[in-house]
């Protein structure tokens, strides 16, 4: 906290101070990323260009149809989907977001002395958190989200 206070005092003038150095705060250390981007672009462009140059070209009706895993295309591509898919997506979102809380918890929990009360509190906390998700799941079940008929 004291460290924070000292840094606050200098903040207005400190905007042009560098961030505390981690590797990722220096431009130079982004070079691999830049290299990767260049490689990705080169690979993609080269593939298109090379197949243009070397590939055989036979146009035709069959070739112009939409590719649907080898089946004959049925109906329009702008087809509406059942709104139930939306509900499934919402349930997915609940579990999706739950994960971002579970990860930090899981990364920290092994560092606690497991014989102390502190560890039990941590465990209770995450169980309560999971419980809320279970309630959401029960609610979704009662609501009929998982019924397909």
């Amino acid at each position, binding site marked *: 906290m*004291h460290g*924070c*206070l000292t840094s606050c005092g200098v903040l*207005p003038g400190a905007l042009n101070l560098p961030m505390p150095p981690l590797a990722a705060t220096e431009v130079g250390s982004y070079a691999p990323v830049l290299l990767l981007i260049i490689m990705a672009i080169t690979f993609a462009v080269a593939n298109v260009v090379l197949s243009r140059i070397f590939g055989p070209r036979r146009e035709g009706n069959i070739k112009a149809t939409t590719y649907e895993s080898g089946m004959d295309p049925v109906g329009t591509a702008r087809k509406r989907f059942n709104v139930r898919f939306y509900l499934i997506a919402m349930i997915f979102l609940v579990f999706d977001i739950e994960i971002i809380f579970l990860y930090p918890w899981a*990364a920290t929990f092994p*560092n*606690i002395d497991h014989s102390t009360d502190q560890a039990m509190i941590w465990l209770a906390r995450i169980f309560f958190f999971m419980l809320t998700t279970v309630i959401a799941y029960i609610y979704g079940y009662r*609501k009929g989200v998982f019924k397909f008929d």
Partner: protein
Amino acid sequence: MIEKLQTLWPEITLFIAACAVMIVGLSGTRSIRALCTPICGLALLIATFLSLGGLGGVDITVTGPLPVLASYGKAMVGVIGVILLLLIPGVVDREFDAAPGGPGEAPQPPRAFEAIRSNTAEFHAFFLFSLMGLMLCAGADDLIWLFLALELTSLPTYVMVTISTARNRSLEAGVKYFFLGALGAAIFLYGFALIYGGTGSTNLEAVHASIVAQADAGGINSITMAGFVMAIIGLCFKIAAVPMHFYTPDVYQGAAAPVAAFLAFVPKSAGFFAIMLLTATLGWSFGASGTELPGPVHSALYIIAVLTMTVGNVLAILQNSIKRILAYSSIAHSGYMLVGIIAGPGGGGGADSTLSRNGLSAVWFYLVCYGVMNVGAFAVVASLERRRADGTHDEIDSVADLRGLCASRPLLGWTMVISAAGLLGLPPLLGFFGKLPLFTSGVGAGHYLLVIILGINSAIAAYYYLRLAAAPLLESRDPAESVGGEIVESPYRLRTAAGLISAVGVVALALGLGGPLGSAATSVGQSGFAPSYVGRRAADRSPAVIPAAAHTVDDEPRDVEPAADGSVDGATIESDGGPPDARFDHAR
């Protein structure tokens, strides 16, 4: 951590009830579904009891800028929540309920229940979640906490508005409300981020300590200041104040009246809790007199207050819809209450600062008064409906629909008269006693121009409030007017009861109950103001306060992280200990 948990019993009660309601409300049996409202009511009453220090004197006060606010705010939310709850039956799922039947008509047969088309469970659960968020706002001591509580208050209301009627106008209201709400949330979130950036902490006490340190060192840095101003502008959405007020009339008109009543109280209170916590974090110890908020925040609030009052009142004159009038009046009232925040806790802020001097207490007192009076006005609108020839029903909307109400339905008519006159602030009624401390605290703090504008606006407001009061009392109903359908009383009689309770509340608070409430509000306004918060001139500031304040903060929520845990606490520990350069060493 555990200590903090103990202050949360009211919220935990509401949470358990909300989960129960979410399951119970989906039952196929109507009598089980009907349990939703009693469960909510019971939970709110228990929560109120707990927040008043029930259950063997569990101490509900929290740390932070305004410790007593938690208890006062939660109790206030619980009580007004019960009145709001009485308006709820019949808002959603009328087709699945047999309507209780008005006088002289048979109950209509209900439709077969379908869980996927029912909204009872969600509506009641969201109602409780929103109130829970509001209670969490009252007990907030951290910016993260405050942000989550504000969002927990707001997110359910977006849904409540949208599902409150099956008509397109509710949907439109919901969309407008949601999009502007998301904008407001993004703005105050950015403000919170800047506050954190400028002070290095999200804990309100630590932020305050840092601000005091910065002020002593020659001025609060611009990032912190910009953060506070942005946060307050973003919060204007919640209190329906000027830069973010556009949605208010549309949303109140589009939502069903019970939900509009909810919107007029709950998000507004959340906004005031948050603004009050933020301004208290800054402290009223700046400006030429040493009793003002820091310059930029002071000017921002001043401009917002003046514009909000004026815009709200002037535009309300032009309206014919009751709900739009009440919406603009809600905007105007936010402006009035901001005067109390600008005035601050008055000289010293200690025990000598009574209700008439202490702007904060005035705001807390007025918020309760406004909540009670406003629910009454909306309850009258909710209790009346226009039944068309084809059997459909709709809410009444125009002021003309109120004509002759005192003669035809005296209870509703007089409730409307009392509520409107109360909102206007006529002397024997509650609104007057609520507004008076705002005036006196403004004068006490020396903001004469602001108080004059407040007075002028109160006079403008008389025009439309008297219209609302005169239509039921003095005008008589023209039979030729019932072209759109006959106006009947809603079959849900609890709504009338809510109106009556609030009318009785308005009278009772004015007659004598206001005294205890006022002293409670005063204690909130006086609480927690360590000398560093209020009325200290720059010369009086002693640096000794800072380490002490920082120390108390260290014992607080951060110790939830285990001390042995290097990976989490490492950075903090290093920045605590070594010389300033240690900050840069730790990565090497």
